[in-house]
């Protein structure tokens, strides 16, 4: 986005990615998602590799955000949502009745489309998670907040105004604060739902750099509308599309192709993927 002439597969090209995710942290098996009687997502099978960035791309309404929200049970907040199939996290089915969704979200953090810092100080935003989860920190809370802000590449910009409102920051800074807030509960997976769609190109570049940096410690799953972003940062890409139902006309999302990002963008095996990435539709 920031540089339209950059080669599409740049970050991925410098990294060797195994053909299939070696240690999948999260696996979705035969995942079907419904809102009431509406079948939103059809039969998704996906494995998200450890310390990899997996991008989910596709046209609007293809169900990629819905799938993302299923991975930490955020869909539970929608009363009519229903999930069939399994999502395993380190081998545990997170939809097992014995699993507490609150505990799931403490392991699988989330960053949203629109920066949504709490109307509190910068410090309190980062300290919120450790406080409510009652985490036992190895260091003091002050040190932990500093560590998170340094991880999110925000420390130098905010260290002198930690007590100021988070709303005094720019949009890009707010989004990096939300990332700092998400890593403060020490998750090992971070879900990002179009994290740059409300940001300008410079702020986008900063967040993308951060994602690549964070890959060393976290497993990152990102939904994006921006194909170049997927190509720049991700190791693997899942392409979704929407198929209209013949009788009702409702559009059900489905997974078309899942492969290494280099393969998806240079040599896709499905015609629909090729049409989408070459800009012929979507």
């Amino acid at each position, binding site marked *: 986005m920031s540089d339209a002439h950059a080669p599409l597969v740049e970050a991925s090209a410098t990294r060797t990615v195994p053909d299939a995710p070696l240690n999948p942290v999260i696996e979705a098996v035969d995942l079907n998602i419904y809102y009431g009687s509406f079948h939103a997502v059809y039969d998704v099978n996906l494995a998200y590799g450890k310390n990899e960035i997996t991008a989910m791309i596709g046209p609007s309404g293809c169900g990629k955000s819905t799938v993302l929200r299923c991975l930490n049970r955020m869909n539970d907040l929608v*009363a009519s949502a229903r999930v069939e199939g399994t999502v395993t996290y380190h081998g545990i089915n997170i939809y097992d009745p014995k699993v507490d969704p609150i505990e799931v*979200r403490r392991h699988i953090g989330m960053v949203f489309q629109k920066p949504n810092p*709490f*109307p509190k100080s910068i410090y309190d935003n980062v300290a919120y998670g450790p406080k409510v989860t009652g985490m036992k920190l190895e260091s003091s809370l002050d040190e932990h907040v500093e560590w998170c802000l340094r991880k999110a590449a925000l420390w130098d910009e905010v260290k002198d105004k930690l007590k100021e409102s988070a*709303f005094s920051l720019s949009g890009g800074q707010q989004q990096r604060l939300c990332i700092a807030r*998400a890593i403060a509960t020490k998750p090992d997976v971070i879900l990002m739902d179009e994290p740059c769609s409300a940001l300008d190109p410079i702020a986008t570049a900063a967040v993308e750099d951060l994602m690549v940096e964070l890959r060393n410690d976290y497993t990152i799953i990102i939904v994006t509308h921006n194909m170049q972003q997927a190509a720049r940062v991700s190791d693997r890409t899942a392409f979704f599309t929407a198929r209209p139902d013949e009788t009702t006309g409702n559009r059900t999302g489905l997974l078309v192709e899942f492969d290494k990002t280099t393969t998806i963008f240079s040599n896709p095996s499905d015609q629909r993927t090729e049409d989408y990435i070459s800009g012929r539709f979507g």
Partner: protein
Amino acid sequence: MSTTLSDVQDGETPPINLGPSSSRLGEKAIVGWLLLCASLSVLITVGIVAALLGDTIRFFQRVPLSEFFRVGQWAPWQGDFPVFNLVMGTLNITMYALIIAIPGGLGAAIWLSEYASNRTRKIVKPVIEVLEGVPTVAYGLFALLFIAPMLKSVWPTWLPGKLGQEPELQFAGAAALVMGVMLIPTIASISEDAMRAVPSGLRQAAYGLGSTKMQVALKVVVPAALSGIVAAFVLGISRGIGETMLVLMAAGATPNASLWPNDSVLTMTAFIARTAGGDISHGSTEYYTIFAVGSVLFVMTLGMNMIADFFVRRFRETYE
């Protein structure tokens, strides 16, 4: 060098007139009428303050400030004018009412906004709003004929000291209990509006960090809605201080300087209502007492609003 419109036009386009197509007198008249409506409420407020002030000054020409603000028994019919006992009466009832109304109202608001399903809320919210409109005389009757005798019969007389004394037929506690219940809908309804206005993105962020429902409500939604919630409290307190009919009927008429719930008290409002409705001669000192007490009431409510305003500015978390 200037270019006029006619220079630019070629022969084919008709001349364009961008002047107003009519004088729009009706619109101007409506704007004038709206301005009049807006200024009317301001003018009436100023008028009330002026009327209050004039007669209050006349009162203080007869009774010195030191007499009015001393601690002592309120007995204007025998020339004793310390307002202290009336203020205590008002504080007594308002305090107990708020002990019931603030937790009750806030609890109802949190449940409605964060826990109730959409369908339940659509039924319960209008019911609460109807309750707000019940005339206070109905609450007064309820307090006098039902709550007071009931409380009196079950009063914990085994308690030691003053609190263990059985109350009279009319007493502060009965009025305060009913006033507390009466204020719950006001506080609940306004607080709920404020909490529902908190963007859902904040709730999602909190859930995404592994918060429980209670943590989302208490640590994110309530702080973000604090200015609206405090405004609800202030409105509740102001209604409590200003409530007349209920206390007139149920709280008794003895101007005791007491904060005990089992005492009979006379509030400032009840005094004004009694005296104004009674047989007093215009121009007597007793007549001017009404205005002096009214001014105290006015200053108390104003002070309340200013304190609340300060707290809102100090602790508000704006999410704009």
